[in-house]
């Protein structure tokens, strides 16, 4: 039965999630405390959660529900984006539960099931529950099996059960397939949500709007005009307390897999027939399967580890000196690769992807760099300071679009110099636009899959990365690079070989 109060023309009404609850495994983790719980509060504050929303924490701690509520409260107070309001907190805290238990214990999951079933009566969650696995990927199979065994994975009639998995989605093609098999045995593919917290839905939609809602960019969006594309994600911080997670994973698996390859797909894909999840996914899969690797991987990739030094006015340790890192670790904290896309639109246009920690500043961007004008009717001195035109999607911070072009310097001498034209989504707009996590979690609760990658996409990405990772694994320790700079020497050389330069983002 359709709801008479809803009308597609009524665009003021937000979609509010129906009655449901969220069970979080790994509530003591950084991500849960800094991102997931604050995002849940922000959603509640914006009135997008159902009135009887329930939040269940599961961890191996000797806590009572009120101890857990205190943890949520503190994390919300510290990290929530929107203002703290007592009445919102009251509403949310009434639905908080905690289950102390062990992932391996059948008894703990039986207890969890009791709590979840009880919520259906006391909070009216009507059997709808999502399980958020904020735990190391190695534990996924165990938890998934426990959910199945205890009957938590099954729901009655119209009710749903969903599972949320954080990236990394495996650490190579084989493990990704294995993970997919394990999850797929218990949950149907439509109930599996893979979350990449780097990639907000807002960003994806902004990029699609710029590319496909305008006539300005499409005619030049091909190898006739584009010289090359640089996709960068730079972080100014080191690994912090995440040694356990990071060592053995590295920049390529952490960031290039999924995040940068998603950005590549969005930049390079053909126009989808519609913005339905399936149509967009088909285009992304098409372009990812056209990606080819350089023949000589050593010459066209680079990797590094940050060395001790100074970054942004503070003395910092090198990667090998960080707590919990093996001094002989070969994990890279900087990775740069070149890939090409073998299709009519992009043949001959290299895509350079780089990701690193402890770089100059925190920035994520996609720069489409154009060819120089075929002829410049100026003297050589006049255009000395003119470089290539560029369109840059700035993803963070300060999301927006920059166009770089040449302009005459005012005065009697004819001199052409690069200038930037910036568009930002409003000076403080970023403050008001939802955090990536908010939209992701809301989509899970609404059952909206659009931007969650399916396993096919993930597998294609690993097909691209596996040969590079295997080659690197056989090459010993990566090169050290200066903290606070823009990466190792080999990265500069890698582009110089192609006669190009990295942008300073």
């Amino acid at each position: 039965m359709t709801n008479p109060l809803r009308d597609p023309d009524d665009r003021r009404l937000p979609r509010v999630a129906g009655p449901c609850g969220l069970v979080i495994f790994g509530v003591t983790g950084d991500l849960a405390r800094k991102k997931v719980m604050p995002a849940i509060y922000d959603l509640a504050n914006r009135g997008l959660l159902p009135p009887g929303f329930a939040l269940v924490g599961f961890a191996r701690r000797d806590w009572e529900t009120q101890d857990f509520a205190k943890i949520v409260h503190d994390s919300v107070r510290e990290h929530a984006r929107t203002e703290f309001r007592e009445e919102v907190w009251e509403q949310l805290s009434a639905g908080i539960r905690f289950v102390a238990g062990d992932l391996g214990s059948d008894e703990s999951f039986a207890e969890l099931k009791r709590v979840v079933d009880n919520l259906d009566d006391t909070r009216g969650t009507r059997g709808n529950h999502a399980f958020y696995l904020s735990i190391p990927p190695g534990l996924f199979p165990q938890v998934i099996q426990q959910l199945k065994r205890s009957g938590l994975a099954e729901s009655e009639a119209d009710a749903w059960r969903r599972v949320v998995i954080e990236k990394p989605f495996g650490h190579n093609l084989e493990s990704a397939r294995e993970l997919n098999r394990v999850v797929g045995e218990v949950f149907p593919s439509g109930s599996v949500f893979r979350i990449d917290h780097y990639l907000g839905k807002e960003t994806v939609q902004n990029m699609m709007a710029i590319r496909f809602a305008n006539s300005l960019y499409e005619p030049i969006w091909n190898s006739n005009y584009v010289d090359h594309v640089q996709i960068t994600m730079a972080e100014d911080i080191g690994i912090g307390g995440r040694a356990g997670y990071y060592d053995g994973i590295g920049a390529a698996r952490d960031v290039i897999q999924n995040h940068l390859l998603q950005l590549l797909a969005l930049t390079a894909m053909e126009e989808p027939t519609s913005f339905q999840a399936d149509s967009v996914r088909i285009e992304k899969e098409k372009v990812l399967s056209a990606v080819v690797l350089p023949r000589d991987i050593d010459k066209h990739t680079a990797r590094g580890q940050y060395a001790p030094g100074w970054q942004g006015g503070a003395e910092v340790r090198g990667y090998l000196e960080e707590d919990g890192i093996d001094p002989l670790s070969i994990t890279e904290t900087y990775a740069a690769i070149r890939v090409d896309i073998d299709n009519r639109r992009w043949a001959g246009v290299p895509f350079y992807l780089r990701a690193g920690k402890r770089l100059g500043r925190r920035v994520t961007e996609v720069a489409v760099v154009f060819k120089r004008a075929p002829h410049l009717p100026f003297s050589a001195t006049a255009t000395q300071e003119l470089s290539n035109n560029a369109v840059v999607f700035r993803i963070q911070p300060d999301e927006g679009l920059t166009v770089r072009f040449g302009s005459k310097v005012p005065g009697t001498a004819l001199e052409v110099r690069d200038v930037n034209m910036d568009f930002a989504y409003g000076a403080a707009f970023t403050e008001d636009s939802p955090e990536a996590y908010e939209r992701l979690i809301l989509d899970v609760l609404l059952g909206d899959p659009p931007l969650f990658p399916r396993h096919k996409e993930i597998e294609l990405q690993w097909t691209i990365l596996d040969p590079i990772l295997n080659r690197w694994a056989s090459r010993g320790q990566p090169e050290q690079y200066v903290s606070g700079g823009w990466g190792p020497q080999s990265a500069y050389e890698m582009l110089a070989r192609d006669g190009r330069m990295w942008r300073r983002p």
Partner: protein
Amino acid sequence: MIILDNTHAGAVTAAIEAERRRMGSPAVSMVLTLIIVTDELHQADALAAASQAAREHPMRIIGLILRPGRGEAHLDAQVHVGGDDGPGELIACRLHGALAKHAGSVAIPLLLPDTPVVAWWPGDAPDMPAADPIGKHAQRRITDTNSSSSYVEELGIRLANYEPGDTDLAWTRTTPWRSMLAAALDQPVGRVTKATVYVQARVPSGLLIAGWLQRRLKVPTEVIHSKGPGITKVVLTTTKGEVVLSRPDGRSAHLEMPDAPASKVVLPRRTLAEQLAEELRRLDPDEIYLQALRGVDRIAHEAHSLPGIDIKRRVKKAPSAEKTVANTVAAKKAPAKKSPTKKAVAKRAAGEPLSREDRAKPTTQRVINPAKIKSAAKKAPAKKSATKPVRKAK
């Protein structure tokens, strides 16, 4: 801030450009121009709210503060560009004397090229916003019925003169309520058979919600006055029970639904800046607002048809007000105001049937007294005609 006394629009534009250059920010990415037509009484609140909304929607705000009178016609302007006030530009113009009648001549040169224009009247609005010298340049025209003392009549005028792009902050204020009610009906609560809205006297948002419910649900819809603040309760009677959304104190709210435990919900009263920011999010016509206005018209009309008892749907079909605008009845308040309490007492004395609410809480809550929303029964002028609809003299 730049102060320009006794100036003209060209000088204001030049001042903005000079200021931008001085600040070294040549690129402007403002998304719209907001013209606020106001008086000294409302200007401070309105300009402050607009500056805050500019954080979400970078825009040029033109405040036209009308100071009609016998003084010499002249323009004084204050210009703020960027800075702590927000990312946009704020131009406050005081239009003295006869110039107050020619506000368009000041606004036109100041509009940003090729971007949408929104007009907002925080206080009294023209009867036909789309035909107004300022309003006709705007894609979106925002009025605010809340500030009107004769809001039932006012809503009738809004309906009679509706043009796509018209909207009302009284309508904007209903969004959180509507959102919660729509979410409630996403659940299996049965078919709605009756809707009741409890609202403080003189709060048009309650009437607009009722109008919306009436049009969407096609069920008898009743409006009952409460102590407030604002809207206090909406009850949807369904085949399975009742959906009750109540907010007695203006802060925390409760939702009760059939087959579900009652729960607290968050339904805050929003600031003017938040309301304006919502209003600026979409610049296309709001068809649902028009539907709500038609519902209000229906409710007010039926109230008139059945004086002295509950506002119920008449068995006989009401004239199809929603078919043609020309037929619309602009409901009007009777000039003689009686205290509602006296009225209830009078009703009792006269042996008239009392409404359920009258019986329950005779001193605090009462039915909208249909005598007070007496229909003017005058036909509003045809849509495009220049004649002004009948309006109560202030």
